[in-house]
């Protein structure tokens, strides 16, 4: 998602100035996505350039509120109506890391898997703790954001479990270690690793 559409959605509720937008944005995402005021103003000036918002006269306190334009409403409606494509998301560094760990000599893939699983579980515990503490009806938007992060973390752990099971099943005849050189530390590690797998 873009901050652009976040701000447009907030302005659809009514005119707001920069600090109000920042506060409202953080409130509706439960502070999972902290914004600095600079990002808010940069985004507002781009939205203004594209004709999606327009500035209103400054208040006596020197605050300039913005309102959404018809073009802005159309853009917002389109955003809500369009599913987020998975290919728009950043590439999954973890998947790439594990794939490389498998084919890099001397890397103990199970340790890589376990280290990641512990870190993800820790995050999951913390998210659950936050959720447990947010029971008021007005916490619902925040709880849904947390739930999304919980389900993503859970999916990652499940995938890691799956990787581990696959490793146990396939490792002995898995990716060929590089041609062993007798005095090569990597090759020794690979041999030890293969030995451990064979003992299972």
């Amino acid at each position, binding site marked *: 998602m873009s901050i652009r559409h976040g701000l447009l959605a907030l302005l659809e509720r009514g005119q707001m100035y920069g600090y109000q937008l920042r506060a409202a944005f953080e409130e509706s995402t439960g502070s999972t996505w902290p914004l600095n005021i600079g990002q808010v103003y940069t985004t507002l000036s781009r939205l203004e350039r594209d004709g999606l918002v327009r500035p209103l006269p400054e208040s006596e306190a020197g605050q300039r509120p913005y309102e959404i334009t018809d073009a802005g409403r159309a853009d917002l409606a389109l955003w809500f109506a369009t599913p987020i494509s998975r290919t728009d998301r950043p590439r999954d560094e973890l998947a790439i890391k594990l794939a490389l760990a498998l084919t890099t000599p001397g890397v103990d893939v199970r340790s890589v898997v376990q280290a990641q*699983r*512990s870190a993800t*579980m820790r995050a*999951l515990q913390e998210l659950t703790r936050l959720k447990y503490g947010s029971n008021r009806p007005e916490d619902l938007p925040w709880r849904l954001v947390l739930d999304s992060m919980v389900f993503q973390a859970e999916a990652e*752990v499940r995938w890691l*479990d799956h990787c581990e099971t696959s490793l146990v099943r396939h490792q002995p005849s898995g990716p060929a270690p590089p041609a062993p050189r007798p005095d090569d530390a990597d090759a020794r590690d690979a041999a030890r690793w293969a030995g451990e797998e064979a003992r299972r």
Partner: protein
Amino acid sequence: MSGSDDAVLELRAVHRTHGAGPAAVHALRGVSLVVRPGELVAVMGPSGSGKSTLLALAGGLDRPTGGEVRVEGQPLGALDRRGLAQLRRRRIGYIFQQLNLLGSLSALENVALPLELDGTSGRRARALAMAALTEVGLPALGDRFPDQLSGGQQQRVAIARALVGERRLVLADEPTGALDSQTGEAVLHLLRRRIDAGAAGVLVTHEARHAGWADRVVFLRDGVLVDTTAPLGSVEQLLSGSER
């Protein structure tokens, strides 16, 4: 119980081997674990890693072939069959995927049963059972029979039975079973609340989302504890992704 040690459950270098000789299966190999009041520990690991064996040993349903299990400082190995049964009825609550509610008894009677088996007067047992049913949010359904309750309600009755009286150790094996995610979450919420009130718990699960309710998650692999987690320090660390 020794003064300095407030552990509700302690496993000391516990081994459990099934069979002997080359066919022996080493379900647990030197597992040590301490669970204190107010602490919920989740146990995760692949099938066959020893999770359920660990829970059975913790609850005195099985005996270790090496090492020691203590509940509230009492070494289980020092108890005879009767003493162990008594400790299990009084101090330990079990929540399993299989609810094992008796169909011919009402919800209230199901919950009161472990107390009555233990010699508590019928009247007192019912009062305690009603308190437990209230704790799980079912004070009005005590006279229903299991087949008149939804799956989620049945699970709550089973939890009330596990929590009734003064149990300080709660052992749960995949307690949310086939419940939908909201109902399953409500079950974990109840468990968490009891733990926060001073009980100690062990939760065996393969679902990370459920293990997330624990204070600590331990990972078993091939009968050995390979790792453990505690929650992150703060939201800021988590959100910035810099937990290390």
